[in-house]
Every structure is written in C-alpha cells, then in structure tokens.
C-alpha cells in the first residue's frame, strides 16, 4: 500500500510537470504568433482588469498625493527654471506648427497621403506592473476597443519605452524596452551622426548593470560619437519614424572586433511610468 501511494505521488508530479511545460509552450507560441490571445483569456483578463482597478486606483491616487507633498519642497526652484524653458518652447512650438502645416501642404501637392512619420497617439494610464523579475511588463488601461494593436510602440515622457505585447478588449500588456527575452521585438533605429550621416540598425538588448540599451552588429565606417541621437527608423512595420529612443553613451568595438557596439542611454526614466502613449500608425 505504501509503495502504491508513493508511485501515485510520482505519477501526479510527472503529469503536473508535463502539463505545465505543455501549457507554457502553447502560451508562448500563441503570444509570439497570434495578434490577440484566445477569447477566454481576453475575457478573463478584462474582468480581472476591472477588479484590479478597484485596488489600483486608490493605491495610485495615494502615491500621487504623497509624491506631490514631497515635490512641494523644491517647487519654487523648479518653477524658476521652467519659466525660462517655457518662453523658449513657445517659439519652437510656433515654428513647429508652421513647419508641420507647410509639410502637410507639400504632401498634398505631391499626393502623398501618409509617410513614415505620421502617427496618432492613444494616451493610457498604467494600472499595474507584473510582479516578476523575468518580465518587465506593465498593464495599461486601453485595449483593442480604443484601437490598440499588438506590437505598437509605446512612449512615455520624451522617449520610447516599449511595445504592446498582448491586447485584450479593455487593457493591454506593454513589454518594456528593458525586457531581455528572446522573443522581444527589437526596434529598427537610426543614429544621426554629427557629420550628418545616418546609420541604421536594430536594438539588441538591455544591460541591466548600467541601465543602457545596447545596439550590436553595426558595420558602419562613419564615426559615431557620444551624444548622438537615436530615433526609430520606421522600417519594417508598425513603428513610425522619428520616435526618440535615447542618446549614444558609448561606442565600442564588439567582442570579435568586426563590428561596432553602441550603448544608448534611454530618453525616459524606465523605472517610473504612470502615463504612457501608444503610437498608432496610419495604414
């Protein structure tokens, strides 16, 4: 009898392991291939997302009030600095508007309906973050019903922070640029050097120790120096052109000495995300 019970336990463990691996493999495959998760999962996630807001909204509100008190202390100094910046910005903005208008007219002139730089923005709030060390992932409160589609780029502050990895009806998951997994979609970017040349490439990963994005396998001869701006190139899919990724922090030869490797300082603080913008390209 004792032996029987031991065998039964072993069988249960092995069955559990097999089922677990099967489920994981299937869900990873679905996540990588399909544009939306299965209907049951979507439905479940929508309901859980609604329930989560009951907890998340008061928690985020509390956080807002606490941080506003602590920010009150250096408000005066910040105000002085910001006033100066605002007067400069107004001028830039007017010029920007004029240029955008001119650009639109010129496009109409040559009957160009949409170019790589055109996109509309969906603003979303971050509900919660995945409590896991393996996935740098946040959940936002806009989904398919607001027009979010899988793989769309997500921005916060002044720069790119990640891409939409799963879309439900009323919420979606955003995989941050700091995520290092194999299936992460790497962004096609371009570096504009000081000499006016552009270098195209693909982001290759994230170095957690220094908090920098890496870009590998560059075989360019043009010199890339510190401070050069990195923006998305708009090549190969749903990402529009011209989203700011960061600035070059360091340019080194790669491990085998054949190509160049770049370390990029992200434009936004990736740790602290509250409001994000999903960029929707017109297609």
């Amino acid at each position: 009898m004792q032996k029987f019970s031991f065998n039964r336990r072993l069988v249960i463990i092995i069955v559990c392991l097999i089922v677990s691996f099967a489920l994981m493999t299937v869900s990873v495959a679905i996540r990588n291939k399909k544009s939306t998760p299965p209907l049951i999962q979507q439905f479940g996630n929508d309901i859980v997302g609604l329930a989560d807001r009951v907890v998340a909204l008061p928690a985020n509100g509390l956080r807002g009030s606490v941080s506003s008190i602590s920010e009150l202390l250096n408000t005066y100094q910040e105000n002085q600095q910001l006033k100066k910046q605002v007067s400069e910005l107004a001028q830039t903005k007017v010029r920007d508007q004029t240029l955008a208008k001119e650009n639109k007219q010129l496009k109409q002139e040559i009957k160009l309906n949409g170019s790589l730089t055109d996109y509309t923005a969906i603003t979303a709030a971050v509900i919660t973050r995945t409590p896991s060390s393996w996935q740098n992932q946040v959940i936002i409160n806009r989904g398919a019903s607001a027009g979010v589609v899988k793989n769309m780029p997500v921005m916060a502050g002044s720069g790119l922070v990640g891409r939409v990895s799963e879309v439900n009806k009323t919420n979606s998951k955003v995989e941050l640029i700091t995520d290092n997994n194999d299936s992460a979609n790497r962004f096609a970017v371009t570096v504009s050097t000081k000499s006016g040349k552009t270098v195209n490439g693909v982001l290759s990963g994230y170095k957690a120790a220094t908090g920098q994005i890496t870009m590998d396998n560059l075989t360019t001869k043009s010199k890339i120096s510190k401070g050069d701006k990195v923006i998305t190139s708009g090549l190969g899919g749903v990402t529009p052109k011209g989203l700011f990724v960061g600035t070059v922090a360091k340019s080194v030869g790669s491990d085998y000495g054949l190509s160049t490797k770049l370390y990029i300082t992200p434009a936004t603080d990736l740790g602290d995300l509250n409001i994000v913008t999903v960029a929707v390209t017109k297609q």
Partner: protein
Amino acid sequence: MYRLSKMRFGFPIGLFLMLFLDGSISQIFSVHLFSTPSVMISHLVVLWLVCGVLFEENMPMPLVKWAIAAGIVFDLYYTGIFGVYIFVFPLIVYVTRVTIKYISPNFLSGLLIYFIDITIVEALSFVASRVVHMTAMSGSAFLVNTLAPTLALNLAMYVVLYFPIRGVYNWLK
C-alpha cells in the same frame, strides 16, 4: 465550521486583494524595487496562503482550490505565460502543510517556513522562465540579484504583517 463562518467569503476576498496589491506595490515602488540590477518582488499572495495554512488549526479550508484560482489569475493577467504559478501556488500550500506536521506553527517557525516557500516560488519561476527563454540570467546572478533581495523584502513583510493578518484571520473565524 468553514461553511458557516465569515472565512468563506473573507478568505478569497483577501487573497485577490493581496494579488492585486502585489501588482500595485510593484508599480508604485517600481523605482526602488526594480532598481537594476537587483530586483525585489513582493509576494503578498504567498504570504496570505501560508498564513492560511498556519492559522487553519481546527478549521480546514479549501486552500488548494483557491491557490489554483490565484495561480490562474496571476498567469493570465500578470505574466501572460500560462502554466507556471497555477502549479507553484498549490505546491506552496502542500509544502507548508507538510512542514507544519513537523514544526508547530508560531511566529519564528512560520518565518522559516516562509523563507523556504519564497525560495521555492522564485526558484521554480526562474527554471520555468529559463525553459521558455523568457530570461537568459545565469544561476549565480539569479541568487545574488533576485533571490536574495526578494527574500529580504518578503521576510520583512512577513515580520510586519504577521500579527495584522493573524488578527484578520481570527476576526474572520
């Protein structure tokens, strides 16, 4: 009697509250918890389940069923990778139940049991993530950068929350 007590509704409500608090804590304190390279993960759900076993005493509760439910929600809503926590959470309940047969549950022995449980949760999720290529972290980096800070955070949370949670359980009974 479990069926007639407030526990019947109180336990699941507390469980899901803890589940959502995990996410909210990770979001609110993301600057401090996810400061690279070391990462601290809050596991309040596991704390709630372990406390369920510790304070169960003479009122058996369907902990495994609720652990599976919490695991399903965690997998689908938080990670999107189905099949990890759905097995890990019930395993934690089972392991804790086996351990308290040998050690009588109190504050200090509970701390030790919770230490073991968090180690199991983190280790199994690490193995699962390695298998499906969610991470490329090496074993030693896992020990230093994830397991150690996570244990520190969760044991501190245990110390702070043990007596309040015991109060809640006594009230629910």
